[in-house]
């Protein structure tokens, strides 16, 4: 499978030599468009003048002309456009962990909401664990609204994710965490980002559940560790992600921090559960 690290070289070699427009053609297109725009602007100016004159004529009427019918908001040039989903009610921003929950000086960045089906993964997905595929993990894909945001400040960044699910599926997502952390408690694989052909190694990944049901309706505190060791025994890479997952009703929040600070992440998980509770007085 192609590797991101090789992508630039692959594209350089594999993309065909396309027949580029000559530079004068590019410049010509720019010039033509500028002229066309000038013509349109001139035409608009004429229309504005004429409309103004028309107003002078019709303005003497005792009954003004009826305004045009408002166009329904749902009518557009693209009638196949899906209905707009109001993420602000399905998973409001206020239901996410807030900067004040993390510490002074933190602020929200990269705050993005996603409509159903548009976000392809979850906090326990994307792993190369051999057992993962057989688990047939699908509940996370059924979200009604997904949102992620970062909380960044002077300390380590905190990554947050939140999803609203159809009735009952939030509990299935929590059950899927248990299935992944059990089936993928530990696995090895050759390679890893810190390795290369010249510096081969083996990467060991572990999931460890540190606490359960400490907040909300359900909760998990999980440590994910990744360690890559070269053939000579030297450590090439070591990383830890602490993950707090909390569920309140049909909403699930994840709090992730790339620091091995379980107590702090557990506390953040408790606060995330409080935010879920407060979002619609669910608790």
């Amino acid at each position, binding site marked *: 499978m192609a590797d991101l690290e090789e992508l630039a070289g692959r594209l350089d070699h594999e*993309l065909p030599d*396309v027949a580029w427009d000559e*530079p004068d053609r590019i410049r010509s297109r*720019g010039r033509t468009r500028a002229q066309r725009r000038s013509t349109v602007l001139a035409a608009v100016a004429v229309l504005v003048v004429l409309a103004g004159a028309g107003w002078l004529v019709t303005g003497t009427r005792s009954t003004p002309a009826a305004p045009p019918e408002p166009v329904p908001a749902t009518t557009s040039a693209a009638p196949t456009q899906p209905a707009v989903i109001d993420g602000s009610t399905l998973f409001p921003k206020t239901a996410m962990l807030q900067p004040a929950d993390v510490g002074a000086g933190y602020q929200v960045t*990269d705050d993005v909401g996603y409509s159903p089906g548009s976000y*392809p993964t979850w906090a326990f997905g*994307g792993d190369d664990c051999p057992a993962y595929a057989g688990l047939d993990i699908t509940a996370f894909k059924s979200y009604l609204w997904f949102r992620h945001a970062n909380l960044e400040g002077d300390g380590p960044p905190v990554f947050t994710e939140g999803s609203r699910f159809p009735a009952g599926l939030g509990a299935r997502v929590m059950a899927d965490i248990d299935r992944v952390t059990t089936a993928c408690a530990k696995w090895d*694989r050759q390679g890893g980002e810190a390795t290369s052909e010249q510096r081969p190694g083996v990467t060991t990944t572990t999931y460890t559940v540190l606490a359960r049901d400490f907040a909300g309706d359900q909760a998990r505190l999980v440590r994910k560790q990744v360690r890559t060791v070269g053939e000579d025994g030297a450590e090439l890479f070591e*990383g830890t992600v602490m993950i707090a997952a909390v569920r309140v009703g049909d909403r699930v929040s994840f709090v992730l921090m790339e620091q091995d600070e379980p107590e702090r992440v557990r506390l953040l998980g408790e606060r995330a559960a409080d935010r879920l509770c407060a979002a619609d007085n669910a608790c």
Partner: protein
Amino acid sequence: MGGAREADFDEFYRAGRRRMLGYVYVLTGDVAEAQDVVQEAFVRAWQRWATVGTYPDPESWVRVVAARIAISRWRGRRSRARAYVRHGAPGPVDGPTPDTVALVDALRQLPANQRTTLALHYVLGLSVADIATETDVAVGTVKARLSRGRVALAQLLGDDNMAEVNRG
């Protein structure tokens, strides 16, 4: 004077178009469409060349414009047909290998901000700091997008090499 300005732009276009093609191909997944987007971005650059040509890094301006064009849904629905009209049907040329196509297809399933960040980093080799400047977000946001994008890609590809903790 005008001749020098034109020569300046022509050299800029010739030097940058191929590099830009790879970047936009990752965003669109279609070579003909990518070519159309790249040329359109350069058309717009020429329209503003009096200003853009004075920037320290005019290619950065073209990248931003090309990315906006490429990820626009409006463009996505129509440019394929327009590219077809302009360039004809895609010919039976040797193109990207199935592995590269699979990777680019997976990239295209990512949210636009992650896809653009990964393309800037892995295709054009921009640093996290440069991407932060170019996309007008915090460095931490770029790191998060890279990390999330890699994880999502790994899931989409079932790949052995990409799922990894963000290296910082």
